[in-house]
């Protein structure tokens, strides 16, 4: 890898070589290890920008939002009968969502006892009955 190629990739992907295209990483690490002062300075500047970008975080979804998503997924027909905007869902809707969530949670928990890997898609049943095997790998 040439010096110029390294700087071009640094400009594109930032200072974390783990984010670079896999085919370029080994050569980039070898060049970085040589410790050229210019490369070090450019990498430090790229790392500064990376650090700033990392400061832009997104708060995780609230538990209420997660439960809402599970409930809606468990009952798509229910979703179509009501307004999608969940802040407008009334107390009855929340109660229904809670019930569906409970049913789904129990279903997943029972299935999890038989599954080899936590977090895998269920093998059969519930809302995922038509899920292809490849989906479960993700």
């Amino acid at each position, binding site marked *: 890898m040439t010096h110029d190629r390294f700087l071009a990739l640094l400009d594109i992907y930032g200072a974390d070589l783990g984010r670079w295209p896999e085919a370029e990483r080994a050569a980039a690490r070898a060049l970085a290890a040589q410790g050229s002062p210019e490369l070090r300075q450019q990498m430090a500047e790229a790392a500064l920008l990376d650090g700033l970008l990392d*400061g832009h975080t*997104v708060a995780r979804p609230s538990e209420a*939002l997660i439960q809402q998503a599970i409930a809606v*997924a468990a009952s798509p027909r229910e979703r179509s009968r009501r307004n999608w905007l969940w*802040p407008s869902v009334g107390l009855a809707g929340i109660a229904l969502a809670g019930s569906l969530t409970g049913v789904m949670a129990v279903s997943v928990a029972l299935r999890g006892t038989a599954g080899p890997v936590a*977090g895998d898609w269920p093998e059969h049943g519930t809302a*995922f009955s038509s899920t292809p095997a490849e989906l479960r790998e993700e």
Partner: protein
Amino acid sequence: MVTRKLPRLLSLAVRLLGRRSEAEEVAQEALLRVWKQAASWQPGQARFDTWLHRVALNLCYDRLRGRRDDEPYEDDVHGAADPAPAPDERLQAAQRGERVAAALAALPARQREALVLQYYQELSNSEAAMLMGVSVEALESLLSRARRTLRAQLVAEGKEKP
């Protein structure tokens, strides 16, 4: 699946749409559509995660197309904020995050999209390029321009406001 994918979809939508409430709707809708269409997914064509991003991106595009020009891009990007007074360090971190969010929002849409997909969503360059319908070279050009703009703006600001 929801607990693993919803945060990822929400991050994508928040950074592209700039509005937390709208992003939450998009993230939920994307999950629902994926469930509905699971049987028709073609496993040989893309990773599931890439497919999920495709669905969410289309929903984001729809939202962005439907916006009026005079609507503000950003509101409450960080979502549920801690109502308690933040210590100085947290306050400064929040301010830095807001500066980045504003700089991101000011980028041309395609540059923002490239950066969000490749950097924040940590998709490979080929996945991000495929989702955007461009070549890897075009994606790299977008990324390079985005980072230069952000560096000029944010690093300069950082030096002015230590």
